[in-house]
């Protein structure tokens, strides 16, 4: 762990050697270090001329603290072991009317898919927020959420490099002006991934597997179709996002292989929580949580019978898809043959 004292001992060059990311940090804060690389960090900072400091809004003493803070942050970010196995336990809280939720405890493990069903406004978002925040009897529902059996302390709760939950939803879009490759590179860089090229290619390939239509590494992300965007978001979240839990708010049927998408997330040891109104998705889960009046009403395991129904539903789904494609490519439908 570096300390303020080290700034008095290291030269700029030594600092950059030891903590490479500190160079970008200095650049971002407009610290003039060019030509002074062999001088001690502290000296360089203390001799920033006043006009430059005022122009660039640099507060030297504060900058020193922030530099140390940033290096520590990056060190902890790099040093963290990827804990691939995570277990989330939800202990009951209360309904909106004050009565106690009627379940014992709900434990979810890495690689499980849990569906959340219930009418709109029933409290699905509150459940997701409780999980995201790792509630500790301190949210409106008074639920308690344990991560690997323990409550999180304040620092863990607010660490932005350590977020528990990644989110995917229907109305999300790409907004950056980048190609697929530049975009993945940017994300991988921010995650400090070592084998960047391999990771980028594997996300790109997975996304193309999920998408109905193929796209290229040079395609701008803003011109991807809805399905392609969704596919890229899912592949990227599965492979690059560090968060052990993925929250999905519906995945639309068009343009993406939903079963493969869920398989991918599960194979990367994510916990998948999916709010859905679609019976096929609801039955793809290992369990489903039924929410009503602000509380968890029931937790149901998907039964053998339901799995049989699921395969029938999937067949129907395929028929719909085939018809859609036939219509798209200018063919005529014939009733008998189709159904």
């Amino acid at each position, binding site marked *: 762990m570096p300390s303020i004292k080290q700034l008095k001992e290291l030269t700029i060059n030594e600092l950059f050697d030891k903590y490479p990311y500190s160079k970008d940090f200095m650049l971002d804060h407009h610290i003039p270090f060019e030509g002074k690389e062999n001088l001690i960090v502290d000296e360089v900072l203390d001799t920033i001329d006043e006009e430059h400091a005022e122009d660039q809004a640099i507060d030297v003493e504060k900058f020193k603290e*922030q530099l140390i803070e940033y290096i520590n942050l990056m060190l902890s970010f790099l040093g963290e072991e990827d804990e691939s196995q995570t277990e989330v336990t939800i202990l009951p809280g209360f309904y909106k009317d004050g009565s106690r939720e009627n379940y014992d405890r709900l434990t979810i493990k890495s690689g499980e898919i849990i569906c959340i069903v219930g009418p709109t406004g029933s409290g699905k978002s509150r459940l997701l927020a409780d999980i995201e925040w790792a509630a500790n009897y301190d949210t409106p529902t008074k639920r308690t959420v344990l991560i690997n059996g323990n409550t999180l302390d304040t620092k863990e709760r607010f660490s932005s490099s350590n977020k528990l939950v990644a989110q995917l939803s229907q109305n999300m879009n*790409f907004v950056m002006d980048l190609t697929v490759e530049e*975009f993945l590179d940017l*994300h991988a860089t921010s995650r400090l991934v070592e084998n960047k090229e391999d990771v980028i290619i594997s996300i790109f390939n997975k996304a193309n597997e999920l998408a109905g239509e193929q796209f290229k590494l040079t395609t701008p992300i803003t011109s991807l179709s809805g399905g392609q965007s969704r596919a890229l*978001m899912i592949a990227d979240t599965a492979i690059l996002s560090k968060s052990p839990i993925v929250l999905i708010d519906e995945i639309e049927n068009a343009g993406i292989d939903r079963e493969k998408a869920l398989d991918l997330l599960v194979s990367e040891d994510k916990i998948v929580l999916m709010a859905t109104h679609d019976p096929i998705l609801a039955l793809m889960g290992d369990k489903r949580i039924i929410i009503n009046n602000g509380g968890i009403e029931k937790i149901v395991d998907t039964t053998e019978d339901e799995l049989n129904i699921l395969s029938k539903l999937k067949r129907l789904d395929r028929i719909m898809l085939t018809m859609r494609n036939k219509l798209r490519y200018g063919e005529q439908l014939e009733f008998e043959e189709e159904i």
Partner: protein
Amino acid sequence: MDLITVSGPPSSGKTSVIIKTIESFLQRGVKVGVVKFDCLYTDDDELYEKIGVPVKKGLSGSLCPDHYFVSNIEEVVEWGNKKGLDLLITESAGLCNRCSPYIKDIKAICVIDNLSGINTPKKIGPMLKSADMVVITKGDIVSQAEREVFAMKVQSVNPKATIMHINGLNGQGAYELSTLMYDKDQNIITLEGRRLRFSMPSALCSYCLGETRIGKAHQMGNVRKIDLSD
């Protein structure tokens, strides 16, 4: 009374975030009031009135909005105390990205949104760099990757800040924010003698004083020229 200063670029979602947070304060019986600072126009005060909290607005008009803020904050605190508030929230838009209304030892929140562009955290000065908490909004409409990258960019200009993602539309995260915003043991009676966290830019030129004519002959005081040499 506790005091918190909220600022952020225009349309970043400050008012929505504050309103969602106030809703959870009201449920817990915390008495909140708001003073909204703006430049030319705002009808946000009506939104605060609608949820039934005491509100005042101040329009800086022809003055620099952050200078106007500092010149008024002492009286604003007095007003809040007179109203018997537990928590006074000031809201102001950072307009030139160089000023910030933050006061030493008074909690400061900067609200910034995911849509504002990946380089925006670098462009915003002390308003972002010296905030205690950074609230990032509009996360529901961008991808997970963009959220992560954006949060990293914010963290790299302000490594000390607590970063929170809040959805100003449905209020996700607002309850959590409210637990960090209010400290019932804080008792701020006056700001007399306190200091700003950061000095405002030293600009005093003929145009500050109402000059409208263009040309060297009309430029006085603090004038700086762009380098156009090849």
